[in-house]
């Protein structure tokens, strides 16, 4: 089994950008996304546990990103004070290089309440059913459905009605929307 340092190096070298990209779905702000991802990395490796490979570690880290975001753990702003350490290329980071679609979805996510956003990302990015979203976020399934209902209603307004289509009813993960945005699951 690799030493934890080896797994750590591999994760930071190969998977950190994707983890920051994932965190950006929750945190919206780029600096906050880095904070979120970096703190999740630290928390995952800070405790002795059997991290046998980068894949296992990444799963822990993604879980930590989700729960940390919902728990508002990011309020510590630990990494903000170290921003100077992370030199980036300005023209790549600048918003004008993002597509209009990226800017739109970023803005739309930003209009959601944190729990709504977390539920939406886990549902539409991670493809998790309601029961698993509830387990991941420590919420009741009913609460998840409520957050998803509100989130999808807002996203339809922000991104257009075709962005979030009705889902088939009759399954656990289905959140079917009436035209007024209320769920009937």
């Amino acid at each position, binding site marked *: 089994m690799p*030493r934890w*340092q080896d797994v*750590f190096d591999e994760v*930071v*070298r190969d998977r*950190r*950008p*994707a983890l*920051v*990209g994932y965190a*950006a*779905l929750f945190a919206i702000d*780029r600096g906050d*996304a880095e904070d979120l991802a*970096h703190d999740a*990395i630290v*928390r*995952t*490796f*800070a*405790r*002795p*546990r*059997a991290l046998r490979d980068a894949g296992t570690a990444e799963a*822990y880290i993604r879980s*930590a990103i989700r*729960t940390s975001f919902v*728990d*508002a*753990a990011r*309020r*510590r702003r630990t990494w903000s004070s*170290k921003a100077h*350490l*992370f*030199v*980036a*290329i300005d023209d*790549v*980071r600048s918003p004008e290089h*993002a*597509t209009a*679609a*990226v800017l*739109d*979805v*970023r803005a739309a*996510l930003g209009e959601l309440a944190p729990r709504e956003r977390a539920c939406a*990302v886990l549902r*539409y*990015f991670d*493809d998790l059913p309601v029961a698993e979203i509830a387990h991941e976020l*420590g919420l*009741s399934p009913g609460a998840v459905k409520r957050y998803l209902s509100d989130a*999808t209603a807002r996203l339809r307004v922000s*991104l257009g009605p075709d*962005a*979030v*289509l009705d*889902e088939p009813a009759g399954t656990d993960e289905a959140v079917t929307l009436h035209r007024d945005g209320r769920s009937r699951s």
Partner: protein
Amino acid sequence: MSEKLRGLLHELSDHETRVAATADTDAVADALRAQVRRHRTRRYAGVGAAAAAVAAGVVAVSTLTTSAPPIPAEPDPTPTVTVSPGPGPTPEPTAAPRVPLGEVTVHPALPTAEGLAAGDLEASTSDWTLTLVEAITEDDPPPRVLYLLGPEGQRYEVPTPVSWEGRYLDDWLPGTTLVLVGDDAGAPELSRAAAPWVLLDVLTGEVLTTITVPEPDSGQVLPTVDFVGDGTHDVLLASVEPTDAPGRVIHHARRLAPDGTVVTEMEPSTFEGGFDAPATVSPDGAWVLLRTWLGVEVRSTSDLSADAPGALPHTEAPERCAPGSWLGGSELAVLCNPDGRWDVSAETVETWAVDLAGGAPTLLATGPRTDAQWRVGQQVIGSHSRLEGDSWAELLRLSPGPVEPVAITGFEGSVRHVSGGRLWVDVRDGDDLDLVAVDPRTGATQLLWPDVFASDRVSIRMLP
């Protein structure tokens, strides 16, 4: 389905991934690695100073001196797991002839050891510690062995019916056979719906109680469970809860009897603070320190609602100080900014010793901020993080006398235990990371356990 939204989310994530890939990976990795190591140091140290930025420093390294012979090298590898009767009797910790309770596991990845004798655990003190070692092997399941480690490097294998698959050793109450075992698969610190702990007798496997964090939906996070250690078998369950105010958290704490009944519970209290190690119990079990960023908040473990007595430094301006580590008994290290409000980036701080049992606080040193502190005999030692040099931290003697480095060749920054007037630290020896006991007064060292950390042979979990 909502393919358009799914596509948009992936497009946003991919865009941010590309942006993140432009950062200086080496600088990021270095900073993150330093954070991880600092957390691990604190975990092993039991408590640490307030959340701190990593500071640069210079360490003076002198020649290592050795006052005691090392434990003999591990046996040559053998291909299979076998068990054999333990070696002959040794006088510690019980004086009577030793009759091992069980057999000793022999495996090429595992160290030599003796069998635990009846009464060893009950006779042990806080100088002793338990450690769980898993052999890194293709065997399924891999051998997992619990060892009782003594001040002179004694190793006794603890026979136990406890299955360690997916579980970890969280705490042990010295002088007893009681341990707290957590569920590693649940990764409690990553989820609000924390996995339970069990309080059990490690020799018999009898479960006394199962401890769960109340009300997962309440938002309590990062729970910790520790023995109170005040002569009872009670445990302290502590957690924090985020608030809408940045940097403010709500602390929860309850004291539980071994049967799980609530002995006393703290009124939820809101402070400036973070999420690491929400509460730590003093070595004598009399007090609990709540992790705060500003000011020092302690409670009596007998009555969690009462503010502790005892004089703190700068009582006229408590925001100048932050808690450090427990030094021993009821003695707490407190760090203060001589120039005003506490600042974790302050390079020069006052380090005080405060005896909560009474008496005036003692100024130990004015000098570099240290991340964790330990009392070793008459000396107080601090661990000082740094970004430069071969080691990522150095040990500083804070008291008595002027602040000066404690020279340990190859010191890697982790202090695992304090025992018999010595610090047990990680020492780099080539590719190996050894466990070494060092007397900070003389600099004399004893190799306790070669190549045990960062080893390709074993994964070790040593209790603070």
